[in-house]
């Protein structure tokens, strides 16, 4: 009798399980980098989405590719928030934690709520692994975990038993432990096995032994749940109320890449994406490099400067030049971006922000590049800055970034961050035919008395995008100050002032067409919480909670940081107080106070982690004396 069959037998139907309903659950899979926790987490979130929950996920992995096994530095985690209602974040407190080794336990236990379920692989709590994690005594035995519902499972042993008759190396067998634990968690939360079984069959189609092993491990883990004395309960999270339609799960980086391909098609242009590998932006390059079939050209440049240079060169030639990077790379791109400001060429710069300064914490999130994007270049250098609020919104906002760049002949910054890049949420798949086209016109005829004037502007102050190869429109552009209209090099003092002001006004004019700032909540009141970028989820969740408590609080999300919506100052003045939560020391606060002379209160966090909903909520309560 195989171990699987044994487990099946043990799961006798005579034991009646209690089923409890939960509106939402946050679980986290944590283990060594080699334990396959990202995969387990991804599978769990996919299944949860498919069964109709709302989901939000956040992976947390180390910067080291392979830190020593069992070390604290090598712990990799994946958090999933799934619910029966609309959620905005991957969750604050963890309800159930899977810890595959002592290091994973040590680094994650602080986030588990009191009374939370703690599933550990007890086989991994050996003296040497305990030492590597810095435990003097075994936490499974010393009573230090008594606040939690500890479920110690000899996962290694059970998994080996389940796979004992397969012709696989011990290493290959142990690699299936993630599916064993995934099976156990599926049982605990009543998830169906089928989607994951399908995935395994597809993924390992060419390796039947490994396929069989993973299937067995998953089923064995599931069956084992039935026998658990420590957990005489299963949890049910009902379906969420989600607008009808077709959905998929999407991360911010995926949505950004898809948005770029879409924008290129909407504009009838070739996308030329130029990038130098950098965490956490590289996935955009990887995704686009696979899209040759969609006509996408990618250049892995020799450095950050070359990447932005090639993007601008492509734009000069009439393609959609885009470059993607993170903070340290952005520093290097400044001079070239300034050239695009001066020459007035379209280019989109994606900054997937990470914790800085310098190399900082490459895999951790932060929002501390905003002022760099706005001001990090010499001279008066106006640029457009937009920021998506959620992973799925990266899709629409990158299309908007492209549209503004080509429509106004200007560099546009797209401020994503490590959290948006890697976390995922459901994405309602758009109908291609309903997406608005991006209109672009290239002149073919001279625009003044038979001559072509490259800096003769339209009513919005935008210059023509004349392409090399067009007969009769030959002209030169560059980084030297140029005479208005003709574009000839000019050192004339009054011309320079005129050009500086014209370039600034052109960008300012964009405020005429962007949507006004809207608020969620009362139009006037005691408190406005205003934010930008990835903090949106935690903030709206906290504000909605406060509103349900009857507090007079609203929130507003700035998706356009430069120019800002025209009514921004007016909105700020409608509230008694203004709170600006940011993952930096006050970039937006400085801008709002400077531009609108409204006092703003900062809530600032720089820990490489997103805000918890509770952190925002506590601050709201503090300010409103609740």
């Amino acid at each position: 009798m195989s171990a699987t069959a044994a487990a099946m037998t043990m799961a006798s139907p005579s034991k009646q399980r209690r089923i409890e309903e939960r509106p939402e659950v946050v679980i986290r899979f944590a283990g060594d980098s080699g334990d396959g926790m990202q995969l387990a987490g991804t599978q769990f979130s996919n299944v949860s989405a498919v069964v109709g929950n709302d989901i939000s996920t956040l992976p947390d992995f180390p910067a080291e590719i392979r830190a020593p096994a069992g070390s604290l530095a090598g712990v990799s985690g994946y958090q999933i928030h799934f619910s029966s209602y609309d959620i905005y974040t991957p969750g604050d407190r963890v309800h159930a934690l899977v810890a595959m080794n002592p290091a994973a336990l040590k680094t994650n236990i602080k986030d588990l709520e009191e009374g939370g379920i703690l599933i550990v692989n007890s086989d991994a709590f050996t003296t040497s692994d305990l030492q590597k994690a810095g435990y003097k005594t075994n936490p499974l035995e010393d009573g230090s975990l008594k606040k939690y519902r500890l479920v110690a499972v000899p996962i290694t042993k059970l998994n080996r038993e389940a796979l004992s008759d397969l012709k696989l190396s011990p290493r290959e067998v142990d690699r299936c432990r993630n599916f064993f634990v995934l099976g156990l968690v599926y049982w605990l939360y009543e998830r169906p096995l089928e989607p994951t079984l399908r995935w395994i069959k597809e993924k390992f189609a060419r390796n039947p032994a490994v396929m069989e092993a993973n299937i067995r491990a998953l089923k064995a883990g599931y069956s084992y749940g039935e026998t658990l004395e420590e957990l005489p309960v299963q949890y049910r999270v009902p379906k969420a109320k989600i607008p009808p339609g077709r959905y998929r799960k999407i991360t911010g980086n995926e949505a950004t890449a898809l948005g770029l391909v879409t924008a290129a098609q909407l504009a009838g242009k070739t996308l030329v994406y130029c990038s130098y590998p950098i965490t956490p932006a590289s996935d955009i390059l990887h995704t686009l490099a696979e899209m040759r079939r969609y006509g996408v050209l990618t250049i892995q440049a020799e450095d950050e400067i070359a990447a932005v240079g090639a993007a601008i060169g492509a734009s000069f030639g009439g393609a959609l030049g885009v470059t993607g990077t993170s903070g340290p790379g952005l520093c290097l791109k400044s001079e070239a971006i300034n050239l695009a400001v001066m020459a007035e060429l379209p280019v989109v710069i994606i900054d997937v922000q990470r914790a800085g300064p310098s190399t900082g914490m490459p895999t951790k999130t932060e929002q501390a590049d905003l002022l760099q994007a706005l001001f990090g270049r010499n001279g008066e250098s106006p640029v457009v800055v937009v920021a998506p609020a959620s992973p799925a919104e990266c899709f629409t906002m990158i299309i908007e970034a492209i549209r503004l760049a080509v429509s106004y002949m200007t560099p546009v910054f797209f401020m994503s961050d490590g959290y948006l890049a890697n976390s995922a949420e459901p994405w309602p798949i758009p109908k291609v035919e309903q997406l608005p086209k991006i209109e672009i016109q290239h002149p073919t005829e001279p625009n003044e008395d038979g001559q072509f004037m490259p800096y003769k502007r339209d009513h919005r102050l935008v210059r023509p995008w004349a392409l090399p190869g067009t007969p009769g429109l030959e002209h030169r552009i560059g980084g030297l100050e140029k005479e208005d209209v003709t574009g000839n090099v000019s050192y004339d003092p009054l011309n320079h002032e005129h050009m500086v002001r014209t370039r600034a006004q052109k960008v300012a004019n964009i405020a005429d067409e962007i949507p006004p700032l809207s608020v969620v909540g009362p139009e006037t009141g005691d408190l406005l919480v205003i934010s930008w970028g990835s903090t949106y989820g935690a903030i709206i969740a906290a504000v909605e909670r406060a509103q349900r408590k009857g507090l007079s609080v609203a929130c507003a999300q700035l998706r356009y940081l430069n120019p800002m919506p025209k009514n921004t100052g007016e909105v700020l003045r409608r509230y008694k107080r203004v709170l600006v939560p940011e993952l930096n020391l006050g970039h937006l606060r400085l801008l709002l106070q400077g531009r609108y002379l409204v006092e703003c209160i900062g809530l600032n966090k720089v820990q490489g982690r997103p805000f918890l909903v509770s952190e925002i909520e506590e601050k709201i309560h503090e300010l409103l004396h609740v």
Partner: protein
Amino acid sequence: MPAASLPTLTPKDFASDQDVRWCPGCGDYSILAQMKKVCASLGIPRERFVFISGIGCSSRFPYYMNTYGFHTIHGRAPTFATGLKVARPDLLVWVITGDGDGLSIGGNHLLHALRRNVDIKIILFNNEIYGLTKGQYSPTSRLGTRTKSSPLGSFENPIRPITIALAAEATFVARTIDVDVNHLTETLRRAAFHKGSAFVEVYQNCKVFNDGVFEYTTDKEVKSDNVLYLEHGKPLIFGKNRDKGIRLNGLEPEVVELGKGVSVDDLIIHDEKAAEPTLAFVLSRMYYPQFPEPVGVFRAIERPTFEDLLNRQVEDAIKAKGRGKLEELFQSEDIWEVEEAEANGPTALD
């Protein structure tokens, strides 16, 4: 490129209306004049030419050409040119750079443009000095060069542009001299017709800050003893009386006099098409006064270009699986349907 209906172009057609602002006597004037002549002779419509430059005296070049032009930032011209050529393979893209722009601040980009074999023509005006910043030593300045920033003489070993280009796997590498008008014209023309990255070093005199540094190659009295004209398939012979040659002694070149037991058959035969750049490298290491300095084409081989390979991947991918549609792309991951009737969860929670 179709030239059938093309009106005949003259060098004048390539002159922009801008005043040329190089110092009187600058070698750049000659290069500009020959470039206009070459462009007019290629049978390519004017609108297809693009000149891209970085920063420095030479980099003002695009302003003086009545073509498309982009005066970019210091050292980075090859990056803009790469992006442009990838997006627009139909254009003839020239990069104008100098020894500071191309080999100091922009050294990295030069290497990679050549390595990738992007179909751009890089003309490096080497005057062994920073001119626009008013006279500091450059990465090609000879040992001992006294400048404002090296008043006691430069002690940095200079870099050899041709050697660098060869090391970077360039498919076309040549050298010429600003005032050697015919040779300059012919070299630029060959660069223009090369499919792939072409690198041309031009010895260029800076009248103000480094005057006469290449005089040994231009002075009528001595130049034939100091310049070796490379010709494919021909032995390396030089000298006023064409009585000297270059022979290999082991791995080292040596100057020999013809006659006295040495015949033409003993000399190196130039082979610009050699698959390995070994000979070209040896030639690139020959420097005055021990050797005559070679000018002409060191290397000219064929290799697929960057933009062709990239665009071919697109064509092949489309051929194999059809042109991608957004609808498919959006649904390339697991998808699920949410139907109206199913939704039953609470809307708000605390």
